[in-house]
């Protein structure tokens, strides 16, 4: 009941801060990013990381974070790694990976799985841990080796109880099949999907050629067995090998649909199966200042929503307005949207429904061009977004994705 409280309350009523002002304001208790990077993404089964375990990818990414930030590893209290396909959640390997990367045994490690948003969920969880005061400094990360762990074993057989419930049983309908259904139902034309996919390739080719991925990518030296000579050698992987030049809507138009004869979805307009890892170092602004860390951006807030399992592709369409409601932003306040291209159809549909202009979405291409290592993508988007915002002079960015079994997530980030 102090006079100062009353005065500040009145002051707020007069000033009437907008959501954008609040998001852009810098406060000591902001959760900031002081390092973020990813390994290159390589093609599942044949790319540069085909013989590299998920744990080894994670070691590389974590080492990269230590290198870049020069953080004392013993100050990092918790690491959370999003990973989807690893048996046992990959918990044991990731704990071991952190030790190999140079973190002391006092740094705790866990993994989590929220399907395609695991990497984002990991960052959000760590940010929230810091916000509540549970930890001071943490790393949100994501990794997937689809070369070694992608396959039919990822889901156990549904019980009779689950099978008997129609909506529950929908949770295991394969992504391709349900996306095909959604594309048909929502009238997303094959030509539009192909044009969107081709532009993803073209944007990625251009970004690669002009070195726009340089800052976010942390190259790794790995063992690689040459498929022809069967000779194992050490190679340095420093670029996404899924990015292909010369792809046009016309060339994609010739590919046969993968999931239905009269369908519209094929390998060229869906995300690639890839290997990769990404990591984001998070702490309070006050901590970053104290340690002399370079602040790259800040985490504002995130949303998670559920949608019908068969319409999982609409996740971003519901999650993005929700994160706007939480943060008080409107869609025009955002400079760049990183919306995961699980399928051209769903990404295109969500962007259209939300009225987001094409030039604001995935300016360096997306998962169609360079891949979607499931657990990694959410953490990958952070570095893709923050470095691009910085380069273009933008401020506010959103990362978002649809999530298998019918969910969506979105997060707001600010580049500094």
């Amino acid at each position, binding site marked *: *009941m102090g*006079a100062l409280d*009353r*005065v500040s*309350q009145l002051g*707020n*009523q*007069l000033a*009437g801060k*907008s*959501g*954008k002002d609040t998001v852009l304001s810098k406060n000591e208790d902001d959760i900031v990013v002081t390092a973020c990077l990813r390994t290159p993404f390589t093609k599942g089964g044949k790319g540069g990381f085909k013989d590299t375990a998920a744990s080894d990818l994670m070691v590389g990414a974590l080492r990269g974070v230590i290198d870049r930030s020069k953080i004392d590893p013993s100050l990092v209290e918790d690491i959370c790694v999003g990973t989807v396909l690893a048996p046992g959640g990959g918990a044991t390997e990731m704990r071991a990976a952190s030790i190999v990367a140079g973190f002391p045994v006092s740094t705790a490690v866990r993994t989590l799985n929220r399907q395609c948003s695991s990497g984002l969920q990991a960052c959000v969880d760590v940010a929230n841990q810091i916000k509540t005061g549970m930890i001071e400094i943490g790393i949100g990360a994501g990794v997937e080796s689809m070369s070694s762990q992608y396959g039919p074993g990822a889901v156990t057989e549904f019980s009779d109880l689950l099978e008997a419930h129609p909506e529950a049983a929908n949770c295991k309908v394969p992504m391709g099949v349900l996306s095909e259904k959604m594309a048909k139902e929502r009238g997303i034309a094959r030509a539009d999907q192909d044009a969107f996919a081709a532009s993803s390739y073209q944007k990625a080719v251009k970004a690669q050629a002009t070195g726009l991925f340089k800052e976010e990518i942390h190259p790794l030296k790995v063992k690689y067995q040459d498929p022809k000579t069967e000779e194992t050698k050490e190679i340095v992987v420093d670029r996404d090998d899924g990015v292909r030049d010369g792809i046009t809507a016309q060339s994609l138009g010739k590919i046969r649909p993968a999931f239905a004869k009269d369908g519209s979805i094929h390998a060229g307009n869906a995300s690639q199966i890839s290997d990769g890892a990404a990591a984001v170092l998070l702490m309070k602004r006050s901590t970053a200042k104290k340690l002399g860390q370079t602040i790259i951006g800040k985490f504002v807030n995130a949303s998670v929503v559920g949608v019908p399992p068969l319409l999982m592709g609409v996740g971003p*369409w*519901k999650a993005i*307005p929700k994160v*706007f*409601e939480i943060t*008080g*932003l*409107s*869609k025009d306040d955002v400079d760049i949207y990183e919306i995961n291209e699980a399928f051209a159809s769903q990404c295109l549909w969500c962007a259209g429904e939300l009225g987001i202009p094409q030039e604001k979405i995935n300016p360096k291409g997306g998962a169609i061009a360079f891949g979607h290592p499931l657990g990694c993508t959410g953490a990958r988007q952070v570095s893709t977004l923050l470095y691009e915002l910085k380069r273009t002079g933008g401020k506010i960015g959103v990362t978002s994705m649809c999530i298998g079994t019918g969910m969506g997530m979105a997060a707001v980030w600010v580049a500094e």
Partner: protein
Amino acid sequence: MASMLEFRTPQFNPYAVKYSPYFDSRIAVASSSNFGIVGNGRLFCLGLTPNGIQVEKSFDTNDAQYDVSWSEINENQLVVACGDGSIKLFDITVPDFPVMNFHEHKRECFSVCWNPTAKDTFVSSSWDGTVKIWSPTRPDSLRTLPVGACAYSVSFSPHNPAILSVVAADSHIRVFDLRTPSSAQYHLTAKIPVHMSGGVVPVASAPPTELLTHDWNKYREGVIAAGGVDRVVRTFDIRNPAGGPLSVLQGHEFAVRRLAWSPHASDILISAGYDMTCRVWTDGSTVPPDTAKTVHTGIELGQMNRHTEFVTGVDWCLFGAGGWVASVGWDERVLLWDAHMLLQR
């Protein structure tokens, strides 16, 4: 504007004004010294006499006064919301001291409203993020409803004794129905985000805003108008919480501090704000609907700009030809004027 009655409240900055529901000549003004930041409060009970406005009674409180509401069962009683979190019940026939003191709120009590239909309870809201329902005969609250954000304004429905509404700093109108079971929701039956436009998935049409004031329409059951820091008055139908605003009234140049629907017409309301004006509006609901547009645009019918400081309170007189209004502001003045004069100009 020709005829305007004026009363001064030297050293005290008014925060609220209310016409008596019993007498056309009686007005209550809650005021605070030093703009309500520090110091005492003073409650004025004013009478309109052939010799102008006279003080019938005044009551001082230790802390600022932010709102006032007349009792609906006793024509001499009224409750005042105080800065120390207390609510005081004064009786004009009992000098100096309150006849009851209700002190449970942990921070500034900012709004009080007597139940106009059941008449046996009143409700208060506070910066402590709660709403409390009281009986004038009991020192302890009957019920506490959590809001979770600074609750600036609370009001009972004029149509149903069990329904009340609150607006808060978190940009939401909350509607409580006391007939519902007190489940995990604590009687909360609707939560309307005022900054969102309607639709299957509501989309933010504006950033969230602190809501400072609201009022129930006296004729159209379920219609509420709310205003606040974003300078816009919006009306909503609580039966369609996700439907977005019915009408949007834009014109104030600073925060809207107080608004009141007309007791005489279903589409007329008056608002007062930090831009030192009072504005009379029609919400556009009587205009034949334009099928292309789902949201009405309110029309400003007139503006009273004689206050020289923030206007903090405004109320309609229930009696007479209709159109008499009392307004108060930080300029230490109570002004009584006829809104019809504005309309003719």
